[in-house]
């Protein structure tokens, strides 16, 4: 694990700036100050980052790789999120309330995260000018995104969910095992295969 940010990989910098820029403008100096509170964590593929029942102490921005978040329901897994570069992933309830996590986080590819512990977050919110504002806006943004995902799951048809997702994330068909995508989109595996064939045909 590397804690030094003295020379920050420009790629990490760029992802962080892009992510935060969605919520409020941030200068390079401000971002640099914020990154001082963070650490870089590297994981192999197929590593569980947060187990069920464990308290999640990190807020993570994915700068390389892919992380899935899922709930175990009996013998099944329900995938709630597939986070790639530029996305934030964590066990929110656990992190925010310091209670055991209900969800599991696992890498699917070798992954690099820029991570912020709960204590460091509190410190950053307190000490950085605009800290509280940024915290509130990021949280609001997460909330909106979650709500939108819920609507999509509830209001859209299977077909709409599939095509909209694939249009926006064409690379995910290559990166993610099909059964995970099907679970994430709440589509039966056989239906997923059928829609995928339809999609491939349409593209020819």
């Amino acid at each position, binding site marked *: 694990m590397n804690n030094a940010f003295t020379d920050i990989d420009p790629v990490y910098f760029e992802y962080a700036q892009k992510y935060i820029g969605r919520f409020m403008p941030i200068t390079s100096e401000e971002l640099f100050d914020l990154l001082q509170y963070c650490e870089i964590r590297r994981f192999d593929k197929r590593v569980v980052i947060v187990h069920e029942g464990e308290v999640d102490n990190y807020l993570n921005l994915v700068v390389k790789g892919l992380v899935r978040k899922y709930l175990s329901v009996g013998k099944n897994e*329900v995938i709630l999120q597939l986070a790639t570069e530029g996305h934030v992933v964590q066990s929110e309830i656990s992190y925010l309330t310091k209670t055991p996590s209900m*969800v599991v986080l696992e890498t699917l590819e070798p992954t690099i995260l820029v991570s912020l512990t709960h204590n460091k977050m509190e410190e950053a919110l307190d000490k950085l000018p605009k800290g509280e504002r940024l915290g509130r806006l990021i949280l609001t943004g997460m909330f909106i995104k979650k709500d939108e995902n819920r609507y999509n799951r509830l209001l859209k048809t299977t077909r709409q969910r599939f095509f909209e997702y694939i249009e926006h994330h064409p690379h995910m068909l290559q990166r993610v095992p099909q059964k995970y995508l099907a679970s994430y989109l709440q589509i039966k595996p056989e239906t997923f295969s059928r829609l995928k064939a339809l999609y491939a045909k349409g593209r020819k």
Partner: protein
Amino acid sequence: MLMSPQKSFLDFLNKFIPLSQDEFNQLILPCIVKRKFEKKSIITQTGEVEEYINFIDSGLVRKYYKKENEEINTQISYEGHIIHAQESFHSRTPSEYTIETIEPSELTSITYECLERIYSTSEKMQRLGRLVITSTMVLKDKWQSQLVKLTPRERFLNFVSNHPELMQRVPQKYLASYLNIKPETFSRFKHMVKEYSRKIFFHHN
């Protein structure tokens, strides 16, 4: 003694951050709008941009969306809780939800614009806002996980033991929809609980 509505809103905020009566009077009170609704009144219509965050002083309010003519209830809230179309409110886009009273209700409301004004006054207000939003998001996430993880029976029993009073106040079809339980299954569970309590009652007497 009846608690004043202002007092109960201040108590609610105090759970997140200690706030003096003066701070409340100066920063928040000027933004408060009191709104009164009859039962079964629509507070926010689908397609409308949510203008308010609402704290329920009294009454009972539900939030639902329509799917093929069916109303799916996603929130049922009473005194002391916050309800509004939050995604619409924060993102300033049309609401997917309708918000409607079940009982006559009184709300303490703050407009989006005025809330932004409150935030701009201090870091403390920003912090208060963050903490309220955090707690709402956590509640929502927990509820979503329960819908996925628990069986209908578990959801029913959890709900009955945590909110017994709502069983009387809320029409059964709304509760069934909120808990994502088929109406016939809901009746069966309700009957089961009744039988069980009667047995316990006789046993103890």
